[in-house]
């Protein structure tokens, strides 16, 4: 039943290795969202935070404007839930893996934080790869929003329901009053294939069938986001290997 209009989706782009004082860095741009993540680790940890058998993960989220609020705590918590199992923590006990997520542009409308979360998860993964932190698998995330279409608009779904995938802020503000449900979904992949769902935040008013459908659509999108990541990594490695050509 899913009619997924991937053509309407904003293209994502990533760059890596542009920050010099950290082990790894990545920038993820999608729609009007732009997130930069830096990763340092494994590095020395405070005795107070030290864990005897696994690495300690510290995640800090900095907002684009204003001061840090409970919103950043919420994002930190969700990002941690994703990466606590993806990073191979027991390879580096008694060390610290420090992840700093700087929101350059959230790309979310005032009441939402879905794009910030999905873009942050993608950017964090790219930065972890760039830093060479051992990870079990690939992670990619996406945002899907269902809204009530106006009478004159063509809807992707029967019953007057429209879909936005990784939208820009303008698109979100346009449909803000008609939002039915917002889904932020992250999948784990191995060898380019979807392995399992790692995180999902669905808010609004939706049925069981709608949300399960959203998960299926998200799986396809995450697979193509994974392809974008692979290309970015290939480009990054080619850049770094330039010296071999001389």
């Amino acid at each position, binding site marked *: 039943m899913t009619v997924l209009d991937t053509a309407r989706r904003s293209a994502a782009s990533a760059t890596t290795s542009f920050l010099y004082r950290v082990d790894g860095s990545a920038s993820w741009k999608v729609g009007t969202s732009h997130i930069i993540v830096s990763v340092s680790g494994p590095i020395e940890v405070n005795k107070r935070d030290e864990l005897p058998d696994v690495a300690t993960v510290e995640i800090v989220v900095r907002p684009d404007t204003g001061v840090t609020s*409970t919103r950043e705590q919420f994002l930190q918590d969700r990002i941690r839930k994703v990466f606590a199992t993806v990073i191979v923590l027991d390879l580096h006990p008694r060390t610290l893996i420090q992840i700093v997520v700087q929101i350059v542009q959230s790309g979310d409308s005032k009441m939402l934080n879905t794009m910030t979360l999905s873009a942050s998860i993608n950017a964090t993964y790219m930065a972890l790869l760039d830093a060479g932190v051992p990870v079990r698998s690939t992670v990619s995330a996406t945002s899907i929003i269902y809204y009530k279409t106006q009478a004159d608009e063509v809807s992707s779904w029967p019953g007057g329901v429209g879909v936005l995938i990784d939208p820009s802020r303008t698109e979100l503000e346009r449909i803000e009053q008609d939002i039915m449900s917002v889904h932020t979904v992250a999948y784990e992949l191995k060898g380019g294939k979807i392995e399992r769902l790692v995180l999902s935040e669905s808010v609004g008013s939706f049925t069981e069938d709608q949300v399960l459908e959203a998960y299926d659509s998200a799986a396809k999108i995450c697979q193509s986001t994974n392809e974008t990541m692979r290309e970015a990594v290939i480009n990054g490695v080619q850049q770094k290997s330039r010296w071999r050509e001389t």
Partner: protein
Amino acid sequence: MSELQPFAETLSSSPQLFARLLPTVYFDRYITLDPPIRPSLRSPTQFRPCRINTSALPNTFGSSVVRMGECIAVCGITGYIIDSSEAGPSALYTNVDVVGRTGPPQSELMSMSEWMYETALAANLFDPAQLKIEDTAQTLVLQAQVQLLSQMYSGDVAWAALLAALAVTRIPKAILADDEETLTADFATEPVIRFSSSETKKLELNSENLPWCINFGVMEGTGLVLADLEGRVEEVSVQGSITVITSAGNNSIQNLSISAGKSLISKDHIRQCIALAKQRAAELDSILQSQIHNGNG
């Protein structure tokens, strides 16, 4: 010979010590029994007993005390007046804190506060137009203060306290003073607003079936679904979690949060949790309603 006795005693430590030192092994000992049972002696799909008391706090528009198992949360609802033009997207602000703690709130509580605010905003619990003060350009905004009283706490108990308090909230009638005036945001003057201590109006919620928050765990390996996780042993041993906010009586869901941990969460798990959540929501609705009708609500 007598020296061997104390040594033998210390080797056989108490179950509580076992649970603290090796929570996952302790949990495993119970859950691998046939039929599986949890250390709290609940079956996998059994929920905690729930008690709700309402309207116990003075000086509030509404209040509640909710106890689920060992977790206790108290919610008090008050309000403050702002200019309608300064009103934000929400007519309800929530704050969660643990009683007896000093210093800045822990990150887990901050995250919970944010989650409650966003969920309340999306859940559309009541029509904010009820809070407008007639004949003025001002409106009331509700503030919900949730206090967690127990050592163990979780978002679902805090949310339940909020819902129960809102269900009995009464807005006092506004009286416009005829002897005092105040400046408004656009430099006009308006009468000062006072609240009647006797005349109140019930806050009408958008539905009799409230959107309760129900949590589940999904085990790694066996994929067993456990309803209503509580306590450190379960938290550490069962890392996959599914949290559902839904109301009984219809097939819509307001919030679904999944964090897989190391578990493989399938669509069947999700369906099972939603079905159990709907039943629990109906049960909680009836616990609240009977408390309101029989108690002081």
